[in-house]
């Protein structure tokens, strides 16, 4: 098998891609990884989870994003060849890690991790190191190659330059998802000049830095992160769908634990509810599976589970008001009023904070906290980006937090029963 280590395909293969026009594959290793069932599964997982309920175009998958990250990495390596020597194994290591960096994502990962404590990074590692097709392909490169790929993705690999190209404050992962998410959501912001950024990249021992003359391209990238966060990733309607999704999972798990007899047994979800999901069971989950359960659970006798599933499937989402969580008295009163109105506040009154969907804004931070973006000055010295860029400094200091209270407005507006309690809720929500 050793002869296949660095094998090239007879002909270059290409994938049409709306963001990069073409994704080029020449290496047998990459082609075979794309063909594995674990990687193909990413076709069935949307890149942006519930965002499609807000931006109907956001149907793109983690499969297309992963190919995009690979393509960016491939092109960066071409650029950096002028400055740094890549031996063939390191080149393939960087490409494989770029391609596989998200392979452990599950359906609606973020909500699942919150509710079940699963960890997609651990599953990525398990897929790369475990008894999988991905592992079998990687192992052809040598016994230690899979572990190296896993270490690059976990950011614990010795070659920090490769690590930083896949995961740092400016990396192939973010470059692809910002452009791809902007394209598919259809928003007009979020764009930046990818090729210009590559051209001003200069490798250092442990990270790439950017020529000062290319600062404006990097500024655009930071602005893209900022705008995409507020306009797309943290959209309040998407958050409403996330809130409902989390509550469905909580409810189903609670029913499962208390011996409820499901009309439609949770089947593939049972290992999650038992807190003992292994790799094989995890790999069977995708969004089609989850949406199937949500569809059939609309007929469950449990009114809360049936209602929440119906809300998600039919997009009858919760409304929201701005809320200061320091007002504990008002929150307590609201919970009481919800209970009086016969609406269980554990499922229907939800405070959602910005930290519930952590997104890494660019932060210069302090020394040793996290590696910031550095500019390479004409005299050869390095300066942290926000020290040089007024634009970046301005948005680095902006308030980035908020808290919202989500609730089912349709329940409260229906005054045909428990009128007094519902009117009190309306008063408190003002």
């Amino acid at each position, binding site marked *: 098998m050793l002869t296949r280590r660095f094998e090239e395909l007879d002909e270059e293969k290409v994938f049409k891609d709306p963001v990069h026009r073409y994704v080029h594959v020449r290496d047998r290793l990459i082609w075979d990884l794309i063909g594995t069932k674990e990687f193909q599964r990413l076709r069935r997982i949307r890149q942006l989870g519930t965002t499609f309920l807000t931006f109907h175009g956001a149907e793109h998958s983690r499969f297309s994003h992963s190919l995009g990250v690979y393509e960016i990495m491939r092109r960066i390596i071409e650029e950096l060849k002028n400055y740094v020597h890549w031996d063939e194994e390191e080149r393939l290591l960087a490409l494989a890690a770029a391609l596989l960096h998200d392979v452990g994502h599950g359906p609606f990962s973020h909500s699942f*991790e919150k509710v079940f404590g699963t*960890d997609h*990074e651990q599953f990525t590692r398990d897929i790369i190191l475990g008894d999988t097709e991905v592992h079998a392909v990687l192992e052809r490169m040598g016994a230690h190659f899979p572990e190296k790929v896993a270490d690059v993705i*976990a*950011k*614990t690999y*010795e070659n*920090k330059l490769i690590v*930083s190209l896949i995961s*740092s404050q400016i990396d192939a992962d973010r470059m692809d998802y910002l452009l791809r998410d902007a394209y598919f959501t259809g928003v007009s912001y979020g764009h930046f000049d990818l090729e210009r950024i590559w051209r001003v990249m200069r490798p250092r021992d*442990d*990270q790439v830095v950017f020529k000062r003359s290319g600062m404006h391209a990097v500024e655009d990238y930071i602005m893209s992160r900022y705008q995409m966060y507020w306009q797309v990733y943290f959209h309040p309607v998407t958050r409403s769908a996330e809130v409902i999704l989390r509550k469905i999972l909580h409810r189903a798990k609670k029913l499962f634990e208390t011996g409820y007899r499901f009309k439609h047994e949770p089947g593939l979800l049972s290992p999650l509810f038992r807190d003992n999901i292994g790799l094989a069971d995890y790999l069977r989950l995708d969004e089609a599976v989850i949406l199937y359960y949500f569809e059939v659970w609309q007929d469950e006798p449990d009114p809360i589970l049936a209602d929440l599933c119906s809300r998600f499937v039919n997009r009858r989402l919760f409304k929201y008001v701005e809320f*200061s*969580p*320091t007002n*504990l008295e008002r*929150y307590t009163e609201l919970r009481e009023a919800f209970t009086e109105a016969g609406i269980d506040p554990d499922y229907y009154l939800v*405070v959602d*904070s*910005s*930290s519930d969907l*952590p*997104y*890494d804004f660019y*932060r*210069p*931070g*302090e*020394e*040793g*906290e*996290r*590696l910031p973006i550095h500019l390479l000055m004409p005299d050869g010295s390095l*300066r*942290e980006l926000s*020290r040089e860029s007024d634009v970046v400094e301005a948005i680095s200091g902006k*308030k*980035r*937090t908020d*808290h919202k209270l989500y609730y089912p407005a349709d329940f409260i507006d229906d005054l045909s029963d428990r009128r007094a309690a519902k009117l009190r809720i309306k008063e408190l929500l003002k």
Partner: protein
Amino acid sequence: MLEEHAKLLGLIRHAGEIVGRKKLQKMIYILKKLNYPFQEKFQFHFYGPYSEELTLKIEELCNLNLMDELKEEKGGYHQYRYTLTEQGERFLSHYEIDMPGIDALVQTLNDQNARFLELVSTVLYFNNLPKEAVIEKVKVVKQKQHYSDEEIDEAFRFIASLQKAAAETGASSHFHL
């Protein structure tokens, strides 16, 4: 509501003051590894385990005026000091946080410098490996910090003492070295 935020406020109250974001990050990571119920998700970064979720929660607490962040200039960087505000004290009084023995551990951790806590948290990050492999890994990922063998030994001893203290107070740590 905001129970996780309240735990962070409780930690600041025990410490009195924490100087440095990096120190705060590493303290919470270490306490989490000692099995104290902090829920923030950490990933390995250039300087060791780091949680964006935690950074955002701290920012929320500061914006809600429950925690005070004092920014100081230090070399080419900023440094931040964290204390509890009066409003934070009042907010915290509504919560009962059951973390036995955490006050003494917070003091112990707060007495260490950030460099040492970075080493300790990195050792803990690799705690699923045998000791020799941990040392090897620390030397690979922390090449630039040039930790000496003595410092690494000291980190192992420190972790053992933390583990013992946590066990005595009922928090059963879930790592073995």
